[in-house]
Each structure stands twice: as structure tokens, then as C-alpha cells.
């Protein structure tokens, strides 16, 4: 008994110790939460209060909500709604039409859905409710401008039709202005993301970021994206493509041959606009070419590739010890000054259709779908990256990527390169065997998670017998989107100082990120995926 008592007592002590050990373990291995933008709490509180009133107070809202209950089905109760400042024509259960105020001086009519989504219908505009479900609704802007603030919910599914265009939404703020006479769509995005899909490639598209405006003409197929009036920033300098493609797309496409099948795919937290017209001419980079091969019925694309498959607008390196590009690279840039933008789209599966096409995964040396050997971050001098580890929240293709924590600041003393310890980060891949990069194109995809105003420069490097041979530098890297780095190595490649080096005996591949934008101090993460050389 005594022994048993001791055992129990020991067990109790051991158990308590295990709990404490577990607590220390969890604290030691927790990820550092990154910076989070300030939500608009005043608006959120106001909306929540309004929702409570709608549900509790009744009135018009309760009456319409009661009417909405009629449409009960297996998929759950459809959302109810209330209209403020306008009358509803037609059946509230479906096909209802709401006209905005006729006088410009009056405030916009409000369409308020029970889950928090708000639609402002402006003067002269007409909006139609085509269908409501438990997850959202299908609306149509018949004419005029309507502003949407779609509540962000899991599995939300909203769509807004405007002529031949369809905007699929799951939680964002934007406005749609549709002119049926001119067949002209203007979409301003305030928050979230937009992806414009073309008939040439149903799986591809061009992403629009907050602060940008998309304009599309259904008759000509012309589609442009630029900064929204009053919006600043660099958003207009980079184009992004669908979550289902890997692409570098020009901002302007033309389409003379309309195709009658608008398509759209919902992406959580994003908007996709499906075009019913096919672009005639799309200027694309290498990743786009992959994506465009998929649709068999797509019109032939007039592709204007650059000499080595890399986006052309990427600038010369202009920092510290970074070498100048080769003469070939400079010439290539001069020959093609207009820039296809490099960027991609969604967080998970950013490569999109390029990843699902036959043989897409072939020839990729590092896919980060499982454990990979030889991954490290720089332990000296360049300390911005720490804790490399597998990640399943971000990926270019497949389900995983490599994540490193990123911390940049101007604290500390410069090293002998003249750099501060947390000004630069390096991810190093030690290759299992000597590799010849001569005549090969090194490709890597990375995603920076951090404040929206940070700007980085990215540089791929291979190490040949100890010599760091740089590839093509990319400047003005922006966060929260996948970016593709490609660089082609020749027999002799220019090193800093003007010397050259071959690359036939390389044992490491490195991704270097320099924090040389205006935002000096930030922390977040960098994800690396699908590193290949062909």
C-alpha cells in the first residue's frame, strides 16, 4: 500500500510536472503573431447594432424576414433582408427589384441582409435579387452603381451580375457600376481581392487588389485595371492573376470574339469577375503560358515572351554588395521596357491551373510537400529569417510550402558588408549533389506576409565552389501575393566587381530578401515553394 501510495504520489508529481512541461513546450514553440491591421471597429459595432435591431426590433425588417422564411429548404434558411429608402418591386422570395432614389439629393437606398451584408443602391440605379440562399445571394446590377459591403463569413457565396460579367464574392467591399447602354463595367475594390477571368482561359484571370479599379467593355472585350480614383500606392504597377493560374498578365486585353459562357469561381475572401468575352491578345510572362495551355477551345494567344522567360520590368539591383546583372540581361530589359507584372494571387494554391495541368509537378526539385533536407537560414550577418519549417497555410502548388519567420529592423551595428543584422534574410537550400546550372533557368516562388506598405528586393543566388553567383534582382516586392523569381544562368555569369563565374559545380541555392523600402521595422513571414531548375 505504501508503495502504491508512493507510486500515486509520484504519478501525481510527474503529472503536474508534465502539465508544466507541456506549458513550457507550447510557449517555446508558438508562432509569433504577426502584425494585424486595425479593423474599423466603429463600423463593425454599428453594423452589429443594426443587425440586432433588425432581428429584435422587427418592423419592416421583421416582416421581410418573415417572408423570407417561406423559402426554407434542405440547404438552410435563406438570408432575409430589409430595404431602407426604397420600395421593393416583385416577389420578395426571388426576383425582387429595388430602385435607387430618383433624386440625386437623396441618400442611397440600403439593402440590408440578415448576416450583415449591406448594399447601397445609388441614384438611378436598379438592383435585382435573383436568388437567396443560406450562404449568400445572387444579385444583379441592372443599371447604375451599387456599393457592396459583403460580410466575411465561412462558406459565404455571393455573386453580382452586371451584363455579361459575374462577380463572385465571399467577403469584401467593392462597388459595381454597370451601363447597359455602353455595356461598360466599372468595379472599384476597397477591400479584399478581385480576380478577372477571361474566356480564353476559364481558369485564369487577372487579380485586382484593394485600391484598384477594373473597367471592362463587353462589346470590345477591353479590360483595364488601374488605380481607383483617390487611391495611391503601387497597386497599379503590378498585375496579378487568378488563384487558379500562375501568371504574369498585362493590364490590358482586347477581345473581339465574345464567347457566350461567363464563368466564375468563388475564392474565399476574394472576388472573381468572369468575362463572357474572350481576350484576343494577352501579353504574358512564362507562368501565364502554362496556364493558357489548358482550355482547348481558347483562341490562340499572341504571346510576347521575353528572351529568357523572366518578367522584364524587374529592375537592376541597387543595394550594397549585390552584383549588376549581365550585359545580356540589361539588353533584354532595354529591348522590352513595358513590363508584364510578376505577381500571382491566392495564399493557398497560388499557382492555380499551372499546378493542375498534366506534368505540372515534374521537374520541380523542391516542392515542400513533405520534409526537405538541407534547408536553413543564414546564421550569421543576415539574421532576419528564423525558424524554417513546413507550412500548410500557404502554397504555390500542392498543399505545403516552407515558412520562415521574418523580422526586419534597423537595430544593431553594421556587419562588414555594411548591413545591419536584421536588414536582410536568406533561405539556403543545400543541394544533395553538385549541380550544373549552366543554361538552366532557376525558378522559385515566394510569398511575403507583412504590412502592406513594406517593399523588398529579392535575389536568387547559386553558390559555385564558394562563389555566390547572383541571378536577377527583383525590386519593389510587395506583400501578400505569390511572386515568381526566374533567372537563367549562362556559362559565365557576372559577379560583383565585374568578374565572372561559371555555375557548373553548385552546391547551394539561396533566396535573399533585402528590406530596402520605406518600412524599416516589421515582422511577419516568408513562404517559399516549388524551387526548380530546368
Amino acid at each position, binding site marked *: 500500500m505504501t508503495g502504491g501510495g508512493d507510486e500515486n504520489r509520484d504519478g501525481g508529481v510527474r503529472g503536474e*510536472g508534465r*502539465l508544466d512541461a507541456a506549458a*513550457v*513546450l507550447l510557449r517555446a514553440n*508558438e*508562432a509569433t503573431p504577426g502584425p494585424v491591421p486595425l479593423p474599423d471597429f466603429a463600423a463593425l459595432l454599428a453594423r452589429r447594432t443594426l443587425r440586432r435591431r433588425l432581428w429584435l426590433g422587427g418592423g419592416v425588417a421583421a416582416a421581410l424576414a418573415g417572408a423570407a422564411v417561406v423559402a426554407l429548404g434542405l440547404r438552410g434558411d435563406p438570408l432575409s433582408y430589409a430595404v431602407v429608402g426604397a420600395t421593393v418591386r416583385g416577389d420578395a422570395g426571388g426576383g425582387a427589384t429595388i430602385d435607387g432614389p430618383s433624386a440625386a439629393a437623396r441618400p442611397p437606398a440600403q439593402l440590408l441582409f440578415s448576416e450583415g451584408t449591406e448594399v447601397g443602391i445609388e441614384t438611378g440605379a436598379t438592383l435585382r435579387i435573383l436568388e437567396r440562399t443560406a450562404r449568400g445571394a445572387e444579385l444583379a446590377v441592372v443599371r447604375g452603381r451599387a456599393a457592396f459591403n459583403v460580410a466575411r463569413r465561412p462558406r459565404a457565396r455571393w455573386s453580382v451580375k452586371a451584363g455579361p460579367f459575374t462577380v463572385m464574392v465571399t467577403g469584401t467591399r467593392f462597388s459595381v457600376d454597370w451601363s447597359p447602354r455602353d455595356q461598360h463595367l466599372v468595379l472599384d475594390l476597397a477591400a479584399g481581392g478581385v480576380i478577372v477571368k477571361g474566356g480564353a482561359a476559364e481558369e485564369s484571370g487577372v487579380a485586382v487588389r484593394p485600391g484598384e479599379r477594373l473597367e471592362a467593355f463587353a462589346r470590345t472585350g477591353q479590360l483595364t485595371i488601374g488605380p481607383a480614383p483617390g487611391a495611391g500606392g503601387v497597386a497599379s504597377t503590378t498585375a496579378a492573376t487568378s488563384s487558379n493560374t500562375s501568371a504574369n498578365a498585362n493590364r490590358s486585353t482586347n477581345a473581339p470574339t465574345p464567347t457566350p459562357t461567363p464563368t466564375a469561381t468563388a475564392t474565399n475572401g476574394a472576388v472573381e469577375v468572369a468575362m463572357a468575352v474572350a481576350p484576343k491578345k494577352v501579353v504574358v510572362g512564362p507562368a501565364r503560358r502554362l496556364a493558357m495551355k489548358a482550355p482547348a477551345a481558347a483562341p490562340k494567344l499572341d504571346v510576347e515572351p521575353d528572351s529568357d522567360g523572366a518578367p522584364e520590368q524587374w529592375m537592376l539591383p541597387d543595394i550594397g554588395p549585390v552584383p549588376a546583372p549581365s550585359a545580356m540581361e540589361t539588353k533584354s530589359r532595354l529591348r522590352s521596357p513595358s513590363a508584364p507584372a510578376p505577381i500571382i494571387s491566392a495564399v493557398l494554391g497560388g499557382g492555380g491551373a499551372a499546378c493542375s495541368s498534366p506534368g505540372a509537378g515534374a521537374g520541380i526539385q523542391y516542392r515542400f510537400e513533405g520534409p526537405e533536407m538541407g534547408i536553413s537560414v543564414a546564421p550569421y550577418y543576415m539574421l532576419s529569417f528564423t525558424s524554417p*519549417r513546413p507550412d500548410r497555410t500557404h502554397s504555390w502548388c500542392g498543399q505545403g510550402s516552407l515558412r520562415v519567420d521574418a523580422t526586419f529592423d534597423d537595430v544593431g551595428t553594421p556587419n562588414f558588408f555594411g548591413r545591419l543584422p536584421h536588414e536582410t534574410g536568406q533561405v539556403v537550400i543545400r543541394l544533395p549533389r553538385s549541380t550544373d546550372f549552366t543554361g538552366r533557368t532557376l525558378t522559385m516562388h515566394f510569398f511575403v506576409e507583412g504590412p502592406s506598405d513594406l517593399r523588398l528586393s529579392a535575389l536568387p543566388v547559386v553558390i559555385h565552389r564558394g562563389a555566390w553567383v547572383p541571378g536577377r534582382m527583383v525590386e519593389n516586392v510587395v506583400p501578400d501575393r505569390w511572386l515568381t523569381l526566374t533567372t537563367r544562368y549562362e556559362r559565365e555569369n557576372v559577379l560583383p566587381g565585374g568578374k565572372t563565374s561559371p555555375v557548373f559545380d553548385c552546391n547551394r541555392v539561396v533566396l535573399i530578401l533585402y528590406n530596402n523600402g520605406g518600412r524599416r521595422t516589421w515582422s511577419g513571414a516568408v513562404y517559399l515553394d516549388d524551387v526548380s531548375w530546368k
Partner: protein
Amino acid sequence: MTDADLAAALRARDRRAYAVAWTELGPMVRRLVARFFGPGADAADLSQEVFLRFFRRIDELRDPSGLRGFLVGICLGVARNELRRARVRRWVGLTSAGELPEAPVAGPDLEAREAVRRFYAILDRVSAQDRSLFVARHLEKIEIAEIAVMHGMSFGTAKRRVARAGARIERQIARDPALGGYLDRFGLGAGAAGKAAAASERRERKS
């Protein structure tokens, strides 16, 4: 700005106070949410929900100096509700796989990552309240009296339930010899560091 000043500003519905609260207290809430749910938690969304409730219920705060404890209590409540909802969603098959997706775990140590994963799997098997009590007591090192207030219990009840929750988790650990062995070894190694960290945390909380 002291907690009392912040509480007064929030009670006055000063919009600037929202930003101050989010900036000053947001990291604490996000950390607590992350600790509660483990790796892969959508800490940002849940933190926003926590703060929305915090702002709406600020008038219920009796002692302005207890602002942080009040917020932690709301945070644990939101986390418990979210956990219950997530479980219900899994029961009714609203997720495709019927289970939460595999989530990334911080740290370069593969063994530690596996241990963290297994431990959160154990926390997934205990009730939301047990999990909340464990997080509050062992991870956040909150005193029993405060835990009692946060969970709406008497001191004695809180003390009993913390002990009971710990015992349940211990039993689950004992059923996983690999994890138990790892924690035993980890506890020996981390003992000194853990004590130092605990002392540091206590000092931080007092200050």
C-alpha cells in the same frame, strides 16, 4: 495611457480608444487565442470578435484597473464558444474531412513539433472548459481567484475544476507514452528555464 484611462475612453465610446486598445492589447489577445487553439488558429478573426464583444460589454467592467483581466475573460469565453461551434460543425459533417486540417507548428525541432501536435490533439479531446482552465492556469499563469471571475465560478469551484481539468489532461498524456516520455525529458531540461521564465512572467504581470 493607463488601463483606467483606456477603460474610461472606451466607456465614452471614443473611437480613438478602439485603436489604442487594439494596439496595446491586441498582441495579448492574439497570443491567448493562438495558445488556446494551437498552431493554425485564425487568431486575427477571433481577436476581432473578442474586441467587438469587449467594446460592447465595456460598461460591465466594474474596476477599470481590471481591464486586462476583463478582456482575458471575454477572450476565453469567445474561444470556448468557437471551440464548441467547431466541434458541432465537425459532428454534423460540415467539414469535408470531418476533422480539422493539419496545421503548421512553429519551431525547427521536429520532435518538439510532433509533441506540440500530440498535445493539442489531447486538448481537442477534453471539454472546452477544461481547455480554457488549462490555458488560463498553466499557459497564462493566471491566479485561481482571477480564473474564477473569468469563468463565472466561485473560488473553490474554480480550484476544484482546474485540478480536475489538469487530472484529465494528465490521464490523456499517460495514454500516449511517447508524449509522456518526451514531456518528462523536456520537463527536466526545461525545468530551470521554465522556472526562470515563470518568474519573469510573474514579474511582468506584477509590473
